[in-house]
């Protein structure tokens, strides 16, 4: 893509004016809580200090030493990374397939698909979790009943959450199902932005559909694809609601991911400082993981 001369024109004030409202909002509303959170991670805050407003004692790097020295923490990190990888891959691949499919169907089927996607999207996480939990319930769940009608399978009263692998499969299904509409709708929106002439020209030149996708369609939506992937990765890495709700607000240790772990430490065990430290480490880990991508994305952002 060629360099944009308009962007090079020296207009020093305009971009700053444009980002100013966003920047100020973030600074004012998130600035103080962030400083508070970081400070907290280096202290040892209990409910007593929280309620009285007294300054908690400093703990230095104590919280981090405890967390990083705990094998369980690293198990949770690995689990979170794996979970994120699986969820993001599934969401993006399925989302792309649905988006491409929507371009090829009749308008009325596309409308049906769009309607279903938005309905899925509009479903509150709480309700989605309740429905999936119910569908997979051991005592009156639909899934066990359906699978048991197949010959040779008896899943009556099978509990999907006894084995964390199966449990996470169900949780992954909820997460991917819930995230799919966003991926599909965004990718479809990007696909509609592609000038039809571009693809027509390639077809006339004799490109096979697979080549068309690889050399014309995908490159055109790649910036958005990368952006959606990044967001998915960030969100899935911090997933909390689905696990919390699917496990009835009492997730077993086998179901801890970083988001859940941080929440439990803060609000269940009342170690607010440990919770804050875990949150901080989460951000650092995500940033470290993103560094590779970040470079690419910063470049992407420049390519206009």
């Amino acid at each position: 893509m060629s360099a944009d001369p308009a962007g090079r024109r020296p207009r020093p004030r305009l971009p700053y004016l444009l980002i100013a409202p966003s920047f100020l909002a973030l600074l004012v509303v998130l600035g103080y809580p962030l400083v508070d959170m970081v400070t907290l991670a280096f202290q040892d805050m209990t409910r007593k200090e929280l309620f009285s407003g007294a300054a908690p004692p400093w703990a230095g790097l104590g919280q981090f030493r405890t967390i990083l020295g705990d094998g369980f923490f690293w198990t949770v990190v690995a689990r979170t990374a794996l979970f994120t990888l699986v969820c993001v891959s599934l969401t993006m691949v399925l989302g792309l397939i649905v988006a491409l499919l929507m371009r090829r169907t009749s308008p009325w089927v596309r409308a049906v698909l769009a309607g279903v996607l938005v309905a899925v999207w509009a479903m509150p996480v709480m309700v989605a979790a309740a429905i999936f939990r119910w569908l997979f319930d051991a005592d009156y769940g639909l899934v066990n009943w359906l699978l048991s009608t197949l010959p040779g399978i008896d899943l009556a009263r099978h509990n999907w959450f006894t084995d964390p692998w199966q449990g996470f499969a169900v949780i992954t299904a909820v997460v991917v199902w819930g995230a799919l509409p966003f991926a599909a709708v965004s990718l479809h929106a990007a696909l509609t932005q592609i000038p039809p002439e571009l693809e027509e020209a390639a077809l006339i030149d004799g490109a096979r559909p697979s080549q068309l996708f690889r050399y014309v369609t995908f490159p055109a939506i790649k910036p958005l694809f990368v952006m959606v992937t990044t967001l998915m990765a960030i969100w899935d890495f911090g997933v909390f609601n689905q696990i919390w709700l699917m496990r009835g607000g009492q997730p077993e240790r086998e179901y801890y991911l970083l988001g859940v772990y941080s929440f439990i430490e803060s609000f269940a065990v009342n170690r607010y400082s440990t919770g804050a430290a875990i949150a901080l480490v989460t951000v650092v880990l995500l940033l470290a993981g993103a560094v590779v991508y970040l470079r690419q994305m910063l470049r992407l952002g420049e390519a206009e």
Partner: protein
Amino acid sequence: MTLRLPRRSAVLGALLLFAVTGCSSGEGGTSGGRADGSGLTVWLTVDARESWPDMVASANARFAKKHPGVKVDVQYQQWTTKNQKLDAVLAGRNVPDVVEMGNSETTNYIVNEAFAPLDPKTFERSGQWLPALADACRLDNRTYCVPYYAGARVGVYRTDYFKDTGITHAPRTYPELISDLDRLKAKYGAEDPGFSAFYMPGRYWSAAMGFVKDAGGEMAVEKDGRWQGALSSPKSVAGLTTWKKLLDDYYVGDRAKDNGDQPAVVGQGKVGVFYGNTWEAQAAADARSGGDPRLKGKFATFAFPGPSGKLLPPFLGGSTLAVPAKSRNQELAADWIRVFTDGESQRKLIAANTLPNNTVQLADVAAGGINGPAAQAAVRGWVTPLAPGWTSVEKSNVLPEMLERIATGKASVRDAAREADRRIDAVINER
């Protein structure tokens, strides 16, 4: 059409207000109590709204007579999310004037000076408060909260199943219970592999701990001012083993579940006997909690006999009411609690099939009715250890996870209990 455009002025106003106040201290919000003493904010949990709204209304009416002009704003909280909100709110300046606390939650808040001390003598029947609730309110001879209501679990059975099996009365001893369960299992379990003579989900910790207590065991003990887990003591292990045997013999359902949807499962009709609160028997026949209205009138309760020969000691759940130390209306708040827990209010609670906060009125319940067995059992009631870190133990699910490992056979009773003790020791002394 449910969508209405927001008044633009509201949005703009909010932004403006935000721009003006920014980070600095502005006017106090209206979230909690009003500083001017014109109103009280009361946090009750949803149980009051669902089960005894009359009692709330009548208490408020009587309070209004006493203090005309004081507006009482009752806000209902969910048990699952109440404490997160309370933590955040107590850290701020505008706090509610009265909060309802579960009796196993109070200790940690009292230790951390969240509540104002109260004079028990100014409350009705404070001398006869149920010890299980009153103990949860005391620290170093001072009282920080007032018992509100109690609940004790009992056995609940299907009267029609009992009749059809030829069982003439509810079990009075443990061997009787076992033989009844055997007969139910033989009759209904043979036809339907999904039938549980006794319903006991694996993570139902307050039931399992009843067996531990019955065997003379403990969850945790205090030694020289420090608490430590006692689940792996021989007596505790014996209790857990009895519990496990009951599951193995009579329960075919999901072992990784807790009792949260017990009424809904029982409402499916495949359960002979279960262990629960009196209201769960009604909930199992109530569509709003997933039960089956056709089962109305087919449940009866009995005081659950323990293997020891006495009644199985029930976990005495319950609630208390406290005044946050930051409340600006502490006198009024205490007075509201006074009205809300007086004899009249407690009578209304009893009418709603709930146990009162004192032993005197407990005797009124025992006279008969569906809640009678609960009142009987309540005398042997127990509470969770009053250790500063017990809430952490509960919130980090040490007990349910231990039980699930035992119930599903992932670990032996002894190993699972040892692991649980280790986890209890790690947090139980933390404030």
